[in-house]
């Protein structure tokens, strides 16, 4: 069958199961957009208002659905605009295929109009980046791109397709990619590693599990629960591991890291065997490595060999997918009872409730707080919504005070910490999980970084529930200035527009509140239907996220505020 390269590109994507694309047309990708015009029954193309928005939307879509997120943009500035989302997807292991147009092959290397070395720029922040210069390579490259993006430890792939390759004709024959000899995405489990790990776990009196996103990416939530139940092992989660266990699960001990819960951090330096599953010992989790879990034997389960022994020296590395390694480990561990150890977490939980949560979530007077707003909205959605966040205080508060009843319920920019992630990621999340309520928490700063995407929400009627926790500050930076920079508030105060009026201009309903007495009604109004909505909540200006492990400090050096 003879097709143009552009048609071959779209047909290839359809073979890979693509039905949603986030994109933005322009010169070097116009032949593909022209071909896309005839595929409106098969492919839903969402026109974002900026290419960064397209990438974050594709990330949100991928994170909730487990499918590959797809972007289609032009060359030059479009490609560079997409870079932030690509880098974000790399650090957070999100499967993306980003297709960028490129000038014709004859013009490559001549500094032609809107020519940029996309493959060169994206090489350090992609799992694979490839330039297609002739139509014969399209089917092969697309098949390889999707295989690489979704298999093993997922990640972003960039396909840079020269304009001539989109226009010229090619005999189309699609074969999915199933094997690349230089790439083993899911290594077979090594029985001796499993035995070694099981021996350590069976000898433990105070075993402790750290759950990362690897569990979610492997769809191994049930396998995790079987493992924890049998071993009777308490577990805590990283930011991206949130919702891998439901909030009410008896062995779920909470959130790790800089703004995590007290007991998960304290117990890291008290356990005798630490079992890390699909997490990468990020510095926001470990704090000072020289004082991190030194008393414990460490077991590390990961699919990526480069993560083993990267930050923390491991006593028992276990290479493989959690889907394979967890059941193998469960089979070898003894059924245990660690009641006393599990109950020892409580004293820290009580301390945190008294010193931090009481004030943040259940204040009796004073201005509204972020924590109480998030807690109320979580309750109003039966702890069942997809929570998308921006970055900063809103993010930490949303992660802390949302409750999760099912997996893939927190979509947040973890590794890159991209402000402006919230709005577009929430759009993508809603497209990927149309039957779920999608909440988007943002600060007043991050909201204005990708505010243009309100246009996309309007045009596509994407029913996201946006909440701005407005403190008129770049709150997290302000918090650090207060704590570590002598209260010198250098360029963190913001004079803000009337956000509700802006939403109205985009035909999005909204409300602004400042009083505690208005909160319940405003939440009910926001959740009354499935339409997009903006709720602006003016919260205390100088709120702080506690607990806090100061950067570079020991995980047991936890500030609670007073």
């Amino acid at each position: 069958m003879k097709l143009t390269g552009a048609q071959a590109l779209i047909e290839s994507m359809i073979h890979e199961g693509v039905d949603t694309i986030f994109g933005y047309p322009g010169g070097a990708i116009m032949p593909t957009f022209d071909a896309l015009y005839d595929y409106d029954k098969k492919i839903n193309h969402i026109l974002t208002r900026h290419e960064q928005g397209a990438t974050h939307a594709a990330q949100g879509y991928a994170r909730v659905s487990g499918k590959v997120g797809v972007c289609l943009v032009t060359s030059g500035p479009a490609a560079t605009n997409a870079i932030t989302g690509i880098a974000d997807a790399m650090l957070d292991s999100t499967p993306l295929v980003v297709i960028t147009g490129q000038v014709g092959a004859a013009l490559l290397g001549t500094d032609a109009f809107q020519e940029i070395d996309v493959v060169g720029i994206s090489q350090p922040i992609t799992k694979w980046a490839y330039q297609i210069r002739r139509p014969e390579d399209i089917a092969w490259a697309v098949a390889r791109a999707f295989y690489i993006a979704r298999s093993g430890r997922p990640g972003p792939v960039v396909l840079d397709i020269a304009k001539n390759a989109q226009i010229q004709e090619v005999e189309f024959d699609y074969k999915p990619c199933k094997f690349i000899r230089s790439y083993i995405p899911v290594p077979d489990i090594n029985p001796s590693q499993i035995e070694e790990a099981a021996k350590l776990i069976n000898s433990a009196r105070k075993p402790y599990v750290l759950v990362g996103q690897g569990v979610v990416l492997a769809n191994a939530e049930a396998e995790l629960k079987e493992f924890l139940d049998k071993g009777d092992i308490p577990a805590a989660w990283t930011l991206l591991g949130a919702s891998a266990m439901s909030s009410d699960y008896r062995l779920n001990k909470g959130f790790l890291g800089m703004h995590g819960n007290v007991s998960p951090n304290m117990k890291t330096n008290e356990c005798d065997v630490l079992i890390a599953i699909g997490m990468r010992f990020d510095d926001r989790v470990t704090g000072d490595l020289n004082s991190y879990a030194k008393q414990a034997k460490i077991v590390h389960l990961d699919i990526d060999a480069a993560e083993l022994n990267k930050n923390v020296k491991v006593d028992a590395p276990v290479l493989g997918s959690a889907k394979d390694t967890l059941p193998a480990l469960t089979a070898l561990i003894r059924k245990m009872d660690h009641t006393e150890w599990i109950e020892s977490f409580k004293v820290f939980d009580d301390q945190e409730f008294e010193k931090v949560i009481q004030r943040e979530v259940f204040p009796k007077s004073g201005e509204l707080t972020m924590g109480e707003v998030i807690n109320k909205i979580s309750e109003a959605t039966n702890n069942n919504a997809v929570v998308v966040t921006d970055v900063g205080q809103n993010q930490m508060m949303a992660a802390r005070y949302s409750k999760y009843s099912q997996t893939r319920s927190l979509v947040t920019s973890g590794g890159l910490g991209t402000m402006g992630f919230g709005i577009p990621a929430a759009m993508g999340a809603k497209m990927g999980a149309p039957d779920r309520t999608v909440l988007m928490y943002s600060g007043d700063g991050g909201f204005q970084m990708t505010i243009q995407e309100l246009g996309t929400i309007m045009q596509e009627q994407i029913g996201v529930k946006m909440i701005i926790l407005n403190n008129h500050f770049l709150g997290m930076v302000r918090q650090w200035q207060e704590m570590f920079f002598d209260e010198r508030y250098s360029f963190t105060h913001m004079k803000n527009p009337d956000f509700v009026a802006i939403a109205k201009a985009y035909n999005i309903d909204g409300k602004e509140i400042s009083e505690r007495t208005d909160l319940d009604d405003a939440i009910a109004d926001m959740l009354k239907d499935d339409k997009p909505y903006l709720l602006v909540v003016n919260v205390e200006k100088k709120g702080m996220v506690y607990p806090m492990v100061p950067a570079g400090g020991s995980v047991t050096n936890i500030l609670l505020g007073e």
Partner: protein
Amino acid sequence: MEKTLYTITVFSENTVGLLGQITIIFTRRALNIETLSVSPSALKGIHKFTITVFTTEDVVEKVVKQIDKRIDILKAYYNTDDDLVHQEIALYKVATDKLLEKGSVEDIIRKYHIRILEMNTDFVVLQKAGHYAETQQMFEELSETIGVLQFIRSGRVAITKSKVERLTDMLDANKKYERE
């Protein structure tokens, strides 16, 4: 931890841009590549990179894992000099009259085990193969006596002393993953 000279060997598919993918891994860690040599390997379609770097074992281990992780890299590993038979090649251009002034050309050939690649009335090109220290010593001695007009040394090439041929083993082992 103590720094040592490590030799990193990388086998890759013969695709565009792989050298860049490898070098950025060094750049991120502010590591200098001491020597670099790239050529087709004994296996058709597979390229071999030999890179030397002065660092600690802890760092070289992480660098090698990150190189190995790139999609089109077949295998990356590292060795110290003890594990390797290694060689570099150096070319020296010296003035013909100075060389003849020094005395016997035969003495030089015998002393340094060199070959003469080119000779004319103006200059002579000498070639010496050896370890870094050996080619460097000859460079220094010639510089001090008759002077060296031009000098160039190749990157290291190396062969492991081990009986195991890691790449072919790895390619065989990977075949089990090729299902259907």
